């Protein structure tokens, strides 16, 4: 397989297998990490998650759209050290507009059906992260980068 395609397919597999990700935002230079339920677009160009508008992460990303998202397959076992894959995604976050909302929500809820009430609440925002780079770590210390030209 073409090396680029191989990495993309590994990334896709990881994003499909994992339900939760850690989103990092910042305010005044203070980093802040939050756990979210996420979904990615098949082409890996976007990561979506839902957050209540009252949250600290929402306030932070409204002020500074630059975010990092950590997705990983660790299972809190010793074998994670050689087995787990971890990916850091960088990109810029924004609340999605009405035009995309239905499409993205259906994608999101097909992965997280139990979050239907939460995701559709008027006080929640659907966030779209437009990805810039993926940094994939496997075999403990092997790091490959996937950059997306725009």
């Amino acid at each position: 397989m073409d090396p680029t395609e191989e990495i993309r397919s590994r990334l896709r597999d990881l994003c499909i297998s994992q339900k939760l990700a850690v989103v990092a935002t910042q305010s005044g230079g203070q980093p802040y990490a939050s756990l979210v339920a996420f979904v990615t677009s098949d082409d890996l160009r976007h990561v979506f998650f839902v957050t209540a508008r009252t949250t600290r992460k929402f306030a932070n990303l409204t002020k500074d759209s630059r975010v990092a998202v950590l997705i990983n397959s660790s299972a809190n076992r010793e074998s994670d050290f050689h087995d787990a894959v971890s990916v850091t995604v960088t990109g810029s976050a924004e609340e999605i507009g009405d035009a995309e909302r239905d499409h993205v929500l259906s994608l999101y809820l097909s992965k997280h059906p139990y979050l239907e009430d939460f995701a559709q609440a008027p006080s929640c925002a659907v966030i779209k992260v437009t990805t810039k780079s993926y940094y994939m770590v496997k075999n403990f210390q092997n790091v490959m980068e996937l950059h997306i030209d725009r």
Partner: protein
Amino acid sequence: MSWIVNAENINDADRNQVGGKGYALALLAKGGFAVPDTLCVTSETYQEYVCRTGLRERILLELNRKGFKDMRWEEIWDCATRIRNMFLRKPIPFEIEEELKKVIEAQFRGKSVVVRSSAPEEDAISASFAGLHESYVNIKGVDAILDHIRKVWASLWSDAALLYRQEIGLDVAKSSMAVVIQEIIVGDKSGVVFSKSPIDHSQGVVESVHGLNQGLVDGAVEPDRWIMDRKTNTIISHTPAQRTHWMIPDKSGVQRAALPDEIANRAPLNAEEVSRVFKLVLDAEGYFESPQDLEWTFNKKELYALQSRPITALSPTKEDDGRSWYLSLHRSFENLKALRDKIENQLIPGMIAENEKLAKVALAKLPDKQLAAEIDHRWEVNQKWTKIYWDEFIPFAHGIRLFGQVYNDMIRPDDPYAFVDLLTNTEMASLERNHLLEELAQMIRTNASLAKNLAAGQYEDLDPQFKETKDAFIGKFGDLTCTVTGGTQCEPEAASLYRILLEMAAHPPTETGKPKQGEKTALKENFLNAFEGEHRKQAAELLDLARSSYQMRDDDNIYLGRIEAQLMAAVREARQRIDDYRTGGRRRKIADELIQVAENLDDRPRFQSPYGQKPADGFVIQARQLVGQPAGPGLAKGPARVIRKTADLAEFKYGEILICDAVDPNMTFVVPLAAGVVERRGGMLIHGAIIAREYGLPCVTGIPDATVLIGNGDEVTVDGYLGIVTVGRSDL
């Protein structure tokens, strides 16, 4: 199940816990066969040990540095060496140790034992692990026994065992190991007996040696052999051995000693004893209900079964499972000594003589047809020596490995490669070449007009002394661009050599590095002091062998390079003639044979052109941190110089990181300019790593696709402690 059990108390349910060997011994004892007193350390004990000490995950981390299939055998050997060292350095947890001590002391106080592997996997019907895991004979005292239990555990992860498991598809993560501890029976004659011959199923085979059967099992002592009729238990034929040696116990362990004449003259067994041995295996076959392969020994008149296992492959050749190949990876000391003798006294002088003979031929005077024949001849000569290189020189590198294992077993150093420091600074041919280069560079440093002329490409009026030294250099080592494997094109004059020399001259001289002589002497003393008496003499011999092996690792290629340079010289002469004719400088037509030979040679395989990175619809991959094998300690940062073809070497600049597919010693002249070395080919003992170590440079080997993933000029950090290469700056 407890940590350790007596064979008498082993039941059917314990089979997995005690492994095939332990279980078979327990059954033999129950069936009334005479077997030595036996204890089994269960596989649960092994599991508990690797869990509590964290070794389980450390081993998996080591084995998962990169895909197992991407690892060369040398890298697997390196992994195995590091893992073995983990076992040697990690004691058994106190509570388990106390329990083992108590039981072992009660059973074997004051007695010598044999410590054998008994992996549950060895039971698998299709797999025969015989000989892949280690056994230790004549071990005395509870501490030594515990120590050897760990060595047997470690042998679960030897290179041969890892490769074999991979080959037959066993999951290494599930591997486990039980250990059998048996009272040693000091037999006067011993052997192996097969109840059914793989060649003729109506026959069986008895093999026997004088003394212990350790030598028979590992091939160090040749056995007498009897072919038996299974139906009648009578001898069909007897093939006596050249009886020269036997294995006998010494103070701690066993040694191979010359056989006294009066014993050498007679077969180890008489007809009645042969028949007793064969009856023993037939009984075992009946008892286990399958053909057996049984190790036995006679102590005075008493016949003991030491172990019995099913004959797994009743096919005509035992080699079918490939195991013999894996076993051949390990060469015995005796074997290596003979190889050294051959290399030093026969092959190297042969290569030198061959080179001299070729150098005497006046190529310019040969008519076209003869030149064509000369090229063919040199091609053959080159092929011949390349084959010898693979068949004889490469295996000789095992001298280094054997030494490494003995050193690590005795010294148990923090760094499993500390032993290499004892081998460095040997006078290697490539170092001699680099010293000559440095001499030339020094002339440029101190002679401004020489430097100016060289820089301007004016080679006509060079300083005579410089010219003479340069010519001597080229005479001995070639002009650097032509001597590299696969390079059929040479640059005119010595332009690339001058470029390298100018670069060297622009910077202070590089010295070959560590260790200092004093430290080395201390290391040596420390190593030798770990042995006593006869063993100390053997250790010194082994060190000497390893040094020769280390040096040869480099020299053989240099000598081979010189022979290749002779081939290239003839090719150059042919090309020159063809060029002259085509440009009108020569009127006489070129003989067809010569054109054919010269052009045909271009099809020879050269450096493989690495596949490029293709951006796929806006996605670009880039390596950030690549994991290989640590091969030379240190940390270095610099711009990458990626060597994809020979000519790239001439562009090498001081302070760059050398990135290449595989360094051969003919390329290592740029190493003194480099800040660090990264190689796709993996291993601690490959040429690039050896030269890097000589110069004290950080080195990482075994980076898959190194020359593809790293680009010229990329900022690269080489972490020679962890075996990691980081590419690019740290900004996102």
